[in-house]
């Protein structure tokens, strides 16, 4: 059996794991549950050898081991299917599935026939209909995910970690996956199954381990626990999925204010199918939902960074026609990304330059712009919004994640845009900074700015959002406002447990 005890892991200021534990017995399927940021992904990555834990111990069959690399993880019989996939897109299916474990043939060659046979058997077993010589990048996302699972299974693990693999899968593929997982279970393999889909837990799993805020809060057999209780342990609230929608009469839309943004039947292939939304001036709109339900694409489409494939958007009374973020910024839109490293922060540039990036971005190219100006501008912003961050001339990379995020928010607030878009801005940000960020956003809204904030941590939306749109599978599954802003309704909508989504539709 595999066991982790008292695991601790911090990323900068954020505590991801705080004494969490997990057990996996042979021949059982264990659901690992938790809301976003509960630490379950971190746990998986520690077992996979991607992260090293700060404290705690991992034991295999009662012996304490250390897992320092992916290879070590494999050697202990652990195989992982990652949510973000470990496949190499420019290589063929065959090569990817056999990478690092090629069957040896004569003269040190790979036994192609055997490899093909193995891969074919694997593809057949998983019911994947694809050419094994095709490049991964030419395959559908769902097929890629199936291949990721197949690759993990092909390593004949004793412990199989499946991290949110069903999200991109179709109904029939999920059934195949379930069948295989059950077969593995019959063979005595331990399986840890991470999912957001509640229905799957009862269909497939024997045991559940629920995590919250980096701690393991509940372990139980699926026979002894029901959905409401699971949601309770995940969120600290009981859901009201079946509580009725009478209150829905209250749209929560403010009266007497101008509509700034009017989204109708918006579609963005292949992640957003049909979204309707209205945002008024001075309003804070929250966007909630599990990961990968189309929120990032929706927000980027408003910025002109993602191509709209259907529907229409009215912005400030005109048709929204941003060809690129340049147009959007000039049109008074600001964007704060939660993916700091890739999309927001300039790590080697100074803090003041990072804060002034919005100011730098717009205006005459030849304009005179001294370091002093930038410093004054940024220190002004820092003072005005009471952002405490290190010395202005230090590089941004010297800051913690939370402070980097404040930096990025300060960048846009200082520009005073009409519409500020935030995509999961508090991801990995500590509680204190988060509170400050909320305060800033509220001040801005009070000043007439419209804020659209998407967050994977829905609790925070209650605090700041006037209305919350809940995304599920590329559609708005519910809109919560006023009295309907309850944890229970939100959780239900996030899980797709509302009348809007029929089974099978786009599943």
């Amino acid at each position, binding site marked *: 059996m595999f066991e982790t005890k008292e695991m601790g892991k911090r990323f900068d200021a954020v505590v991801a794991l705080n004494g969490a534990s997990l057990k996996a017995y042979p021949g059982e399927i264990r659901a690992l549950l938790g809301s976003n940021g509960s630490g379950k992904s971190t746990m998986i990555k520690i077992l996979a050898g991607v992260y090293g834990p700060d404290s705690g111990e991992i034991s295999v069959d009662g012996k304490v081991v250390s897992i320092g690399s992916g290879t070590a993880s494999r050697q202990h019989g652990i195989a992982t299917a990652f949510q973000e996939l470990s496949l190499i897109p420019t290589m063929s299916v065959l090569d990817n599935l056999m990478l690092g474990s090629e069957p040896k043939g004569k003269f040190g060659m790979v036994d192609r026939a055997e490899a093909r046979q193995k891969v074919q058997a694997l593809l057949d077993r998983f019911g994947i209909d694809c050419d094994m010589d095709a490049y991964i990048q030419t395959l559908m996302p769902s097929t890629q995910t199936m291949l990721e699972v197949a690759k993990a299974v092909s390593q004949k693990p004793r412990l199989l970690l499946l991290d949110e693999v069903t999200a991109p899968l179709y109904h029939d593929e999920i059934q195949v996956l379930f069948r295989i997982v059950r077969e593995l279970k019959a063979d005595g393999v331990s399986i840890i199954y991470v999912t957001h889909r509640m229905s799957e837990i009862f269909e497939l799993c024997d045991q559940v381990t629920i995590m919250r805020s980096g701690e393991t809060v509940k372990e139980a057999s699926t026979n002894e626990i029901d959905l409401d209780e699971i949601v309770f342990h995940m969120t600290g609230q009981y859901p009201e999925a079946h509580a009725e929608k009478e209150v829905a009469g209250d749209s929560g839309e403010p009266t007497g204010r101008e509509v700034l943004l009017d989204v109708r039947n918006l579609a963005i292939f292949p992640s957003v199918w049909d979204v309707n939304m209205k945002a008024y001036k001075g309003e804070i709109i929250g966007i909630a939902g599990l990961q990968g339900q189309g929120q990032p694409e929706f927000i980027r489409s408003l*910025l002109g*960074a993602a191509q709209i494939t259907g529907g229409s958007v009215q912005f400030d009374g005109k048709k929204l026609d941003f060809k*690129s*973020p*340049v147009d*959007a*910024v*000039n049109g008074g839109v600001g*964007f704060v*990304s939660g993916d700091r490293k*890739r*999309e*927001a*922060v*300039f*790590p*080697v*540039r100074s803090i003041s*330059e990072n804060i*002034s*990036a*919005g100011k*730098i*971005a*717009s*205006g*005459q*190219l*030849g*304009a*005179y*712009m*001294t*370091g002093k100006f*930038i410093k004054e501008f940024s220190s002004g912003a820092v003072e005005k919004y009471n952002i405490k961050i290190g010395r202005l001339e230090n590089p941004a990379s010297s800051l913690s994640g939370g402070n980097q995020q404040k930096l990025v928010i300060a*960048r846009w607030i200082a520009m005073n845009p009409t519409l500020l878009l935030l995509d999961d801005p508090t991801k990995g940000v500590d509680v204190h900074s988060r509170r400050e960020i909320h305060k800033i956003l509220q001040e801005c809204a009070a000043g007439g700015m419209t804020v659209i904030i998407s967050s994977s941590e829905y609790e925070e939306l209650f605090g700041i959002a006037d209305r919350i749109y809940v995304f599920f599978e590329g559609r708005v599954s519910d809109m919560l406002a006023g009295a309907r802003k309850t944890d229970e309704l939100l959780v239900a909508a996030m899980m797709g447990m509302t009348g809007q989504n029929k089974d099978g539709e786009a599943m």
Partner: protein
Amino acid sequence: MHNSAVLRPITNLFGKVSGFANRNPTRMAIILGLGLYAFTVFQVPGAFSVQAISTLFMMTLLLSFASAGQTMVLIGGGMDFTVGAVMSVAAMITTSIMRGEDGRFLQAFAVCMLLGAAVGFINGVCTTKVGLPALVVTLAIGNVVTRMSYLVTAGTPVGRVGPAFASSVIYRHFGFIPSLALYALILFPLVFYILYRSRFGRQLYLVGNNPEAARLCGINVNKIKTISYMISGMLSAFTGMLGVGMLQASRNQMFDAYAYQSLIAVVVGGTSFAGGVGTYGGTIAGSMVMVMLNNMLTALNLSQRVREITLGLVLVLILVMYNRRKGVRQ
């Protein structure tokens, strides 16, 4: 890691030097350059003279002019291999327009700027829009430019620069300050202005550091990069004019070696291939290192083969001190 007691002090020292080089590339380059000169003087005492320092100063200036555009392009995350070709073509244009008469300087200047901007524009469009590696694209464009210069000049460029223009480059004020320094009084502030005092420069650093973030900030990344190539083209063209002002008569491909020379000077000055980091001050110091290195190799009176092997090894050594890419495991 080596655990040998003999190697440890050496690796430690090297680690310290390398750390210093990465923190203060400009100062490191200055130390390196002066060190090379000190070594030269130690070996060949005659190498220390007002006249020699004046010449070295002049050569450093010329290389630093040629490297100015390269610095910008590298900061913006690109690479410009047309520097040498543009310099050579500008030199030929200058002599063939001036034909020994100073009055035609402005015409020559205008045509050279036009040429530099045009080549830079093509570089920019082909690297950003077409998305091919800058190294290969600019190399191909540089080749076409060079070939065209042969067609136009039929292989024998004509004319000379005007005498006043020539002496505005090579005359030595008070016997030792090269007149080229007067151009530096215009060029350096211009480059410093573009890099550190203009909105363009600010955007350039952001684009080089993180193009995706810059794009989402509302910076027109392709435009900024293209402009950096255009400025590089124009600066190269102007340097070509000054270069031929020094040598007075032009030849095809006369400054081709500057493509690599400028690249190394820029890298030694602390600008990284990764983009977003770098200073022009560092480039000037890096140019000095290159000039001092060549000067030392000549002063040591080496045979050509020894000279080339030494040059290669010293370059490797300098590169090891700077610009190490990060490993897979961090």
